[in-house]
């Protein structure tokens, strides 16, 4: 974990709990509220997850509720679907989102289509949690951000919180949601950001974006770990006289189109930031939505600042990621267009 110094400075609230703790609390609270909630995945029990997000839960709720599974993501999701059909509320963990692909068939061909193809007989209310993103020296297979693949799949919801407070509230909403929710956790933020998080239960509704910094000249859309990069770039842009509105999507799909359009109609300029490769990333969808909904308001070409179209590199990851030094020029150029 390489916490860039700006991560801490961007969050203005008093440091209190980090993302891991907030998620852990969210899980604990759902397990406690509803006896049908079960957590399953590799190393989630005994050891509490390789990132410790599920720490202590097996001790508290027993190994029938917090279950260590064999090394088979396809089996985890296939079994979780069956559990959801029976009436449980499974929360499946995929150790790294890079390892979600053995489960891709069960997610995309099955979970996503189950309610539809069965004429509504079998909804699949389940949450699939997985750490995403780079910046922790994970190279190819511990750094990817596969959200676009799931957004392209009708039937799935996709969530990616950027901070501990939102994470807990969104996780609780996701568990209560009656659809299958992909819940992506920015691993770079796990321990890098601390903020005040209530001990008690609360929910943050899905599909509501949040303006985390109001601005006038240009809108930047981000989520997860890159939100902090966008915020840092916005701060720098301000110093150069450009006022940036920063939108944290929080739920990626179904996305909060209204909030995006409201901001873009105001600023007339938009930049989207994501870690995933540029081509066919979620950025393309967002910018196309903007063109479709707010064409006449656009005063500059919509811009993407993203990961390059290469596999995720190890040594040069800081050059791969769309960090603030790449976002800033995009903001300035767009504002000056």
């Amino acid at each position: 974990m390489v916490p860039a110094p700006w991560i801490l400075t961007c969050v203005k609230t008093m440091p209190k709990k980090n993302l891991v703790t907030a998620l852990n609390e969210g899980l604990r609270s759902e397990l406690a509220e509803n006896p049908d909630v079960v957590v399953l995945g590799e190393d989630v029990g005994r050891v509490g997850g390789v990132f410790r997000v599920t720490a202590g839960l097996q001790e508290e709720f027993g190994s029938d509720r917090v279950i260590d599974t064999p090394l088979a993501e396809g089996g985890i999701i296939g079994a979780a679907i069956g559990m959801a059909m029976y009436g449980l509320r499974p929360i499946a963990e995929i150790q790294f989102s890079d390892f979600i692909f053995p489960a891709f068939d069960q997610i995309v061909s099955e979970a996503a289509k189950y309610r539809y193809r069965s004429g509504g007989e079998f909804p699949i209310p389940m949450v699939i949690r997985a750490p995403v993103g780079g910046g922790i020296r994970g190279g190819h297979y511990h750094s990817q951000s596969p959200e676009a693949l799931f957004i392209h799949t009708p039937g799935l919801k996709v969530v990616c919180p950027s901070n501990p407070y939102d994470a807990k509230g969104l996780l609780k909403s996701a568990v209560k949601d009656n659809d299958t929710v992909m819940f992506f956790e920015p691993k770079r933020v796990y321990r890098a950001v601390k903020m005040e998080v209530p001990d008690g239960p609360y929910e943050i509704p899905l599909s509501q974006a949040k303006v985390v910094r109001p601005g006038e000249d240009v809108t930047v859309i981000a989520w997860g770990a890159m939100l902090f990069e966008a915020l840092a770039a916005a701060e720098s842009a301000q110093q150069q006289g450009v006022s940036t509105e920063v939108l944290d999507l929080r739920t990626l799909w179904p996305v909060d189109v209204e909030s995006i359009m409201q901001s873009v109609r105001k600023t007339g300029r938009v930049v989207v930031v994501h870690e995933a490769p540029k081509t066919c990333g979620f950025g393309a969808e967002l910018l196309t939505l903007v063109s479709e909904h707010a064409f006449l308001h656009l005063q500059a070409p919509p811009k993407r600042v993203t990961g390059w179209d290469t596999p995720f590199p190890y040594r040069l990851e800081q050059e791969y990621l769309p960090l603030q030094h790449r976002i800033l020029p995009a903001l300035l150029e767009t504002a000056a267009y």
Partner: protein
Amino acid sequence: MRRPSIFLREGIPTAIRPDGTLDRTHAPDISTERKRELYVAMLRTRVIDGRLERLQRQGRIGFHIGSLGEEASILGSAMAMGAQDWIFPCYREFGALLSRGFPLQSYVDNMFANANDIVKGRQMPDHYTSRAHRFGSVSSPIGTQISQAVGFAWAAKLKRDPITVAVYFGDGATSSHDFHTGLNFAGVYGAPVLFLCRNNQWAISLPSNEQTASQNFAEKASSYGVAAKRCDGNDVLATYHTITEALGYIQREKKPMMIEMLTYRMGGHSTSDDPRAYRVDDEVDRWAKTDPLVRMRRHLEHLGGWNETDESEAKQAVEQELSQCIERAEAAPPPELDTMFDDVYQTRPPHLQQQASQLIHGPRAVDPHLR
């Protein structure tokens, strides 16, 4: 053209002897009335298969995937299950669904994918489901139901509900990922699953002996610490008996079990397939001699519980019911346009509301006869 050679019936006990008498050690202790029910269920399945195939040839339905020759494996297993038990189907088990009381009309509506279809015309024919009948959802991708059935059964176990979940799959499906993960998870967690491998000796054009180098499919279960047995899947009583014992084992031992039901796909893979391209007639002829209906009928006749009149009356009854169902199903309208956007999510999000309105108020509204 090579043929399956290692997948023979050697060492697999039969219940019904060639002369129609019974080997009681391998047969269930059930009434003649129940046996008639088993036979009628098989007969019904066969009659329906024949008619649906004709409908497809006539272009009145788009597709059918039948169970010709496999009726004993399907009905012998399904009808041995308890009312509380669940079935996760492959795609040839419409007979199993009907045996649970699913209305024939609903099944035929599914074949026509009309407005009354339980899956709202969204899937190909023969992709039925029914929660009320404790029957999972047919999916085309091979094998995916296996790990789901395991999760379902495991959930029941966690909830302490004493049910067993039977999951059907073919010989080809043993090569799928979900066979591997499903059996492994079931073994590790002791999920009450009855794995039903319907070995009909072919996966489209691939014979079983090229699907795997193992001696048979049952032995694959031991890899996972799962008990297994083979049964004569063309002998409905032997199958019924084996399944009854397996269900007892599963609930007694709190462990899964796998049964390989040895049978034969007498017809094409589906109405899209012509098996003459890859297999020889004498193999089919040889298997025709073990026709599960002929064998069971002989037994019933031996018991004095069936005759030519029963047979023709039973057939006619199905044909008649079927004709009525087809007439109604064919006359029913297609699903409403708007239903296309239901059930993607529990509630329709804005983007789907928008798309639905685009469809309904778009060119389709101007020219409703477009197809």
